[in-house]
């Protein structure tokens, strides 16, 4: 853990985005996680994605549960409101926050204990409802803060640091998210920032439930031989199906290599996803195909990564509920209270 305060100094030549903000404006407090933690790389990717998209930091609400991963919202977007809620309950708090103000960007950060065990139900139901959010699980297969117990995403047969073999079947959150109707589903690896940053960008620009499972090795308790969530193991078994670029401007799309292998997906908000195929057979518009593909490859010990499914025509909970455009938290008595005349009518009907 580091106790020193982060210096405010910025290099005068530091790169600025369209809003005139630098990377530094998207940073938060100094991380208190272990040196080399995969989660810190995800934090860096979130900062990069928000910088690249020129998002106003205060228009983001960062919401998390409990655990190592859930601490990270303190380490990015220091000018955003953050909410470190209760264990496994980030999805419900995020859903409520989203209902209150549809104009903010909702970033849910969770871990595998938080989302696959204690909060499995809330994870599932937030996805089902199509809450407009970016839901990131920083997945290390282990309970770090309580020192190394298996989580529900640990593979069967994988070994703990103490040498215990896991006999339970793993939960694949990506598979569940696909089945429950998430409209943007991806998996990535904390050690592959090039892949992860555009995936986060695409998710933020997506209108609907976007879910990203990021394999994020735990340097302290799950990075040993026999673990299937170690840096070495993930690198060896990473099977990336595509590479993503997110294009937000009006610039023409430049396709450098073989044009036949690039697919352009335009989302609701006008952002375009340029998907460079790495696996010629993989179609990110085919939900059922994606599920089958994942299961087949998982059986072979492969970790499939990339943008696995996207529905560019997705809608969200607010469209299902047909709520007004103006955020509910800005409605006042004049908008909400029917007044005494209506009450007189109601009284009369009750006699």
């Amino acid at each position, binding site marked *: 853990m580091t106790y020193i305060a982060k210096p405010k100094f910025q290099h005068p030549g530091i790169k600025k985005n369209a809003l005139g903000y630098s990377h530094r404006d998207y940073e938060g407090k100094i991380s208190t996680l272990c040196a080399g933690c995969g989660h810190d790389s995800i934090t860096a990717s979130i900062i990069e994605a928000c910088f690249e998209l020129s998002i*106003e*930091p*205060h*228009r983001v*609400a960062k*919401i998390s549960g409990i655990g190592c991963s859930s601490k990270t*919202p*303190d380490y990015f977007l*220091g*000018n*955003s*409101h*953050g*909410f*470190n*809620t*209760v264990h496994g*309950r980030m*999805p*419900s*708090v*995020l*859903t*409520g*926050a*989203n*209902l*209150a*103000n549809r*104009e*903010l960007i909702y970033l849910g950060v969770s871990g595998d204990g938080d989302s696959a065990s204690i909060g499995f*139900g*809330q994870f*599932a*139901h937030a996805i089902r*409802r199509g809450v407009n959010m970016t839901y990131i699980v920083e997945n290390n297969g282990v309970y770090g803060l309580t020192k190394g117990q298996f989580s529900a995403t640990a593979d069967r047969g994988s070994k703990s640091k103490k040498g215990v073999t896991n006999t339970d079947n793993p939960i694949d959150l990506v598979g569940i998210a696909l089945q429950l109707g998430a409209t943007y589903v991806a998996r990535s690896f904390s050690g592959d920032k090039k892949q992860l940053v555009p995936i986060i960008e695409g998710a933020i620009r997506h209108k609907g439930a976007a879910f990203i499972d990021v394999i994020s090795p735990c340097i302290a308790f799950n990075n040993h031989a026999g673990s299937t969530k170690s840096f070495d193991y993930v690198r060896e078994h990473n099977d990336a199906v595509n590479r993503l670029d997110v294009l937000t401007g009006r610039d023409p799309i430049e396709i450098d290599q073989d044009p036949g292998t690039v697919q352009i997906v335009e989302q609701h908000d006008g952002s375009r996803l340029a998907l460079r195929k790495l696996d010629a057979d993989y179609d990110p518009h085919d939900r059922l195909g994606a599920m089958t593909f994942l299961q087949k490859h998982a059986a072979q010990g492969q970790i499939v990564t990339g943008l696995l499914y996207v529905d560019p025509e997705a809608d969200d*909970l*607010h469209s299902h*509920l*047909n*709520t*007004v*455009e103006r955020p*509910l*938290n800005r*409605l*006042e*008595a004049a*908008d*909400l*209270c*029917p*007044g*005494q005349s*209506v*009450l007189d009518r*109601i*009284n009369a009907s*009750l*006699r």
Partner: protein
Amino acid sequence: MSQQAPLSSVNDFVVRFANVNGSGSASANELFARAVLRHGVPVSPRNIFPSNIQGLPTWYEVRVTEAGHLGARGGGTDLMVAMNPQTWDKDVAGIVPGGYLFYDSTKPMPSTKFRDDINVIGVPLTAITNSTYTDPRQRQLFKNIIYLGVLSALLDMDPKLIEQLIGEQYKGKEKLLSSNVHALHLGRDWALQNLKCPIGLRIRKADKVGDRIFIEGNNAAALGAVYGGATVCAWYPITPSSSVAEAFTNHCKKLRHDKETGQAKYAIVQAEDELASIGMVVGASWNGARAFTTTSGPGVSLMTEFIGLSYFAEIPAVIINVQRAGPSTGMPTRTQQCDLIACGYASHGDTKHVMLFPEDPAEAFEFAAAAFDLAERLQTTVFLMLDLDIGMNQRLCRPLKWDDSRQYDRGKVMTAEMLDEGRDFGRYLDVDGDGIPFRTLPGTHPTKGSYFTRGTSRDRYARYSEEGAVYADNVQRLLRKFQTAQDMVPRPLQANAVKPTKYGVIYFGSTAPAMDEATELLEARGHQLDRLRIRAFPFHSSVASFIAEHDFVYVVEQNRDAQLRQLIVTENGIDPVRLVPILHYDGTPITARYIADSIGTHQDQIKVTPLRKAVS
């Protein structure tokens, strides 16, 4: 025939309908209650129903009470409308001597099934129905209206008033209207021709209802949430609170859609469980919307972790708890006031929560609306403590009122303008001594006022800290805030006895009508009591002074463990000996007779002249 003189009473008796759940009797029974009201005679009906959808016994008890006693009377039934063979024996046994039994005599009953101290009125309802209707569903529904027609003759009711009600109910549906009126007269005419009408029990026109309305507490609370500006409702179905969310949905559909776009100025989510429903409420409130959930005891148990977060991180939340008999699943369709401790101190660690105790639907409406102001002003959880007796029964109460000039109190919210003026923002900084800090809403300002909300300890500027002094400073401020709440919540209402007395009684919520009536009964027995109706927790200082002014104070409540008494003893440091518990907890609503008997017995014991005094 009856050896007992037949009961004779005008506008003061109890009719009980014994039916089979799901047989469509509820609307006919309600029609009866409303018809009595239209005679200007107050009624107080109660549903007694099982946790079941179809087939099990259900009862509807109507207390006809010109004197306006709206609590349950107890002491048996004066007129039993026995339409359920399953419960025949119990129903017949429940009739007071000299009372009346009205039953379907289509099939002959053995004489052993009757009592000789009651008056039996047999009407071949099934035979009448079957000879008139062929459709099985019609037969069932119209049979209910036919027995209503019979009752109108037996009790000397004005059939025009019932027809008027049917007319209002089926306005625009002429066919249904005329067939219902026809069924009504079928029963009425049969009774007039074949029975001695009226019987000893009669409804006579009076003028005792006034402008009062007839509404269920859950419906009124839902309306209070609409008027109080709730925009987010997250809930999970549970008896007896589901009808709050359902009523809120219905009211919002009519009252909360934008006239031009048709879009909804509210969001209602049926959550996956109570943990999620309170989580959504906390999330929405954190983000500045007025949000509530509605539940009952088991749901509160599930919500306690979030309630602790709401208390400690200081996030508004409104929870409507329609109490039922616990613990565990308990008696899901029976009433109690049994969650005071569970709600008042919900969650681990040191916590205290605001509770409001409405006595009837009118207060349920007012307190529901007030709960949102209080939750935002105090930045904490506020419980609206209803119970099944108020929540799921129609109750006569004063008309609902709203002051159109009233604005919502959104509490201490620091705006972008205030931040730009250079105001010091410390999320947990007590700027004016009331223990309540300012909050900012997400998205307020690009560079100022953001903070990290957490359930862990932090300093006045929301920075994580496990320093003992910092923690203590924070939780002491929370206590200060709770003291501030004392003067914001609805105050207790005191009513003194006609003559000065050393004895007092404290009560709350749905006990009120029974307590009012019990006071009259006790006065008739020579017992004078000053009364204090508590309407909220934390207790106002007048509670302690009321107790100090009396030798003994009875605390009347509907639970086994004297939970209100415990709260008073704990919070006010009162000597428990001075508070005499009067407890009723069998799941039925408390009655005036029960209260009067319990207090009367205790008073009689106190008033025994001491031996020494007698000798001297």
